[in-house]
């Protein structure tokens, strides 16, 4: 019996280790690469034999990368904020109200989410040039918002559905207007949902490459994923491998920070105690 149990545990442990290693190996590889000296860059070692900060220093030397970083942060934050605010309102309506065309609205937003972005890039390119927002921040914020809103509405409406209806009724009987009930009772309770959605939307905007490369032409609005593609080596015969690795590591950091920062807010069971436990 005991040996069967031990076997069971060992089996699971092995599987877990394999999965984790499989997932983390590329991350380790890129980190290792970013610390390698140019001369040992292609030696194929898993571990840098000659440690150096040169790659990192290199990407911050010119304004190209820092400018892209600022673009990335600004665009992603604004798109996230707008998407979450609009998504919260829409999701509340979807979860709580009965109105004509509700199914159509949900269907439409789902449709947008399923549309392959690549098929929209060319029309968007033309539209944005016509409107004069090509290669500007709004030129990226608007498509990001459009594509992340369905996601925001979906996750948030799931959260709103979890909040007991009775709380809102209680607020109404206590003398709250619908706006007060939302602001003072519902919104604070939906906070974990809002933060979860914010993280998801932020990651989506942060990681996007397709729109970033197609809808920008200069460093004015080019975000990091696109900027990395324009990295050049110090001579045309040299590959910018080290710089790309360093930049990749740098743009991973904000995501990690963002998740760690808000992870605490995503506490399950914030609503516990509202209704009979």
């Amino acid at each position: 019996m005991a040996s069967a149990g031990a076997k069971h545990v060992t089996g699971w442990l092995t599987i877990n280790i394999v999965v984790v290693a499989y997932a983390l190996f590329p991350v380790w590889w890129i980190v290792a690469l970013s610390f390698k000296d140019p001369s040992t860059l292609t030696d194929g070692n898993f571990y840098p034999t000659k440690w150096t900060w040169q790659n990192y220093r290199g990407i911050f030397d010119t304004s190209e990368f820092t400018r892209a970083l600022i673009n990335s942060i600004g665009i992603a934050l604004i798109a996230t904020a707008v998407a979450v605010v609009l998504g919260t309102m829409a999701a509340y309506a979807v979860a709580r109200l009965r109105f004509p065309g509700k199914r159509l609205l949900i269907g439409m937003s789902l449709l947008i989410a399923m549309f392959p972005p690549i098929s929209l890039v060319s029309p968007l390119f033309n539209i944005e040039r016509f409107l004069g927002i090509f290669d500007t921040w709004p030129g990226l914020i608007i498509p990001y918002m459009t594509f992340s809103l369905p996601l925001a509405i979906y996750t948030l409406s799931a959260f709103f559905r979890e909040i007991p209806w009775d709380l809102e009724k209680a607020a109404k009987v206590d003398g709250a207007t619908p706006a007060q009930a939302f602001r003072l009772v519902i919104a604070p309770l939906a906070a974990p949902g809002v933060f979860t959605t914010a993280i998801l939307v932020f990651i989506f905007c942060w990681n996007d490459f397709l729109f970033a490369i197609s809808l920008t032409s200069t460093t004015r609005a080019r975000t990091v994923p696109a900027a990395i593609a324009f990295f050049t080596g110090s001579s045309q015969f040299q590959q910018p491998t080290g710089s790309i690795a360093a930049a990749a590591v740098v743009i991973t950091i904000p995501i990690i920070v963002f998740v760690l920062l808000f992870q605490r807010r995503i506490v399950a069971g914030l609503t516990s105690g509202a209704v009979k436990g």
Partner: protein
Amino acid sequence: MAEIVLEGITKRFPDGALAVRGVDLTVGDGEFVILVGPSGCGKSTTLNMIAGLEDITEGSLRIGGQVVNDKAPKDRDIAMVFQSYALYPHMSVRDNMGFALRLAKVDKATIRSKVEDAARILDLTEHLDRKPANLSGGQRQRVAMGRAIVRNPKAFLMDEPLSNLDAKLRVQMRTQISRLQHRLGTTTVYVTHDQTEAMTLGDRVVVMRGGVVQQVGTPQHLYDNPRNLFVAGFIGSPAMNFLHATVEENALRTMLGEIPLEAELRQTLERRDAPRELIVGLRPEYFEDASLVEPGRRGLTFTATVDVVESLGSDVYAYFREEGWQPAASSDLAELAELAADAGAQETSADQDQIVTRLSAATRIREGSRAEMWVDTAKIQVFDPHSGANLTHPENHRA
């Protein structure tokens, strides 16, 4: 404090379902009225309409002499206690109780003193700064009560406020609610599906079924003079026993034996043009161990096998079930079927194919033995099996 008047209140949901049909009810100033009935009888919908959480399809609702049909809940000045308590989880007990006052823009010092007064009444003073999640079920229930009384509203509406508590706590809170209501003298409408709560709490009880008011009256009146089969079966625990009966020359023949027809009852049946097949209702306490009854007392004596005996100390419940017996089959009448379903849902002992008797503690009856039983036939209630109407009910006579 105010009178609540419902006139022909009807609720039809958008899908066409009729939840409440033409309810007329006047809840007097300071009165404690209970709406009781099985689930789906429309009692909660009625309460929600009084609160303003549901629209009224037809009829008029007046609170304190003012028609409030189209007023938002916040303009009705009523407080509600929810079954789930609906406490705001992100606020402390103090903020929960003061929320309504805060919305009404009462100044902070007044809120503080009012909340503390209410907390003292409800014994919550040391919990004021805790969050609902850290409270026990009973404490949460008291916070929900506190939130209602802090405001000193025109009326309290309570939607099964005790059904989430365990049995012992429920009895305690029941007396506390009763005391509180007497002390504050606030008009109260209380919804429950528990007939014991209904009997013990209210000044008057409204029994509902299928969206229709069945009977309104004091608890004792409903118990003694149920208007129809449904009320008879719903009020009282253990429930009333129903037996098939056939009208004979001078007697009602039931499976227990022949119940002699009194002249008065006979006249009543004739006057009301009663069918030959009837249903007889006998409350468990009409029965007694035959050996304990003084000889010569009028009644029916019969012999049956005791199925189960439950001794409660003060009383003994004895259950009988006999081969070939068929007390009123539950499928006969929608009302009985509904009662049976409800009893099953509540896991009470009311079983349609057995007879429940409540005997004095002195009985020597044993499980599985044959026992001679006596039943007081003077108090029987006779029902029309088709309409369910109580043929022995005085008010039904005049109708």
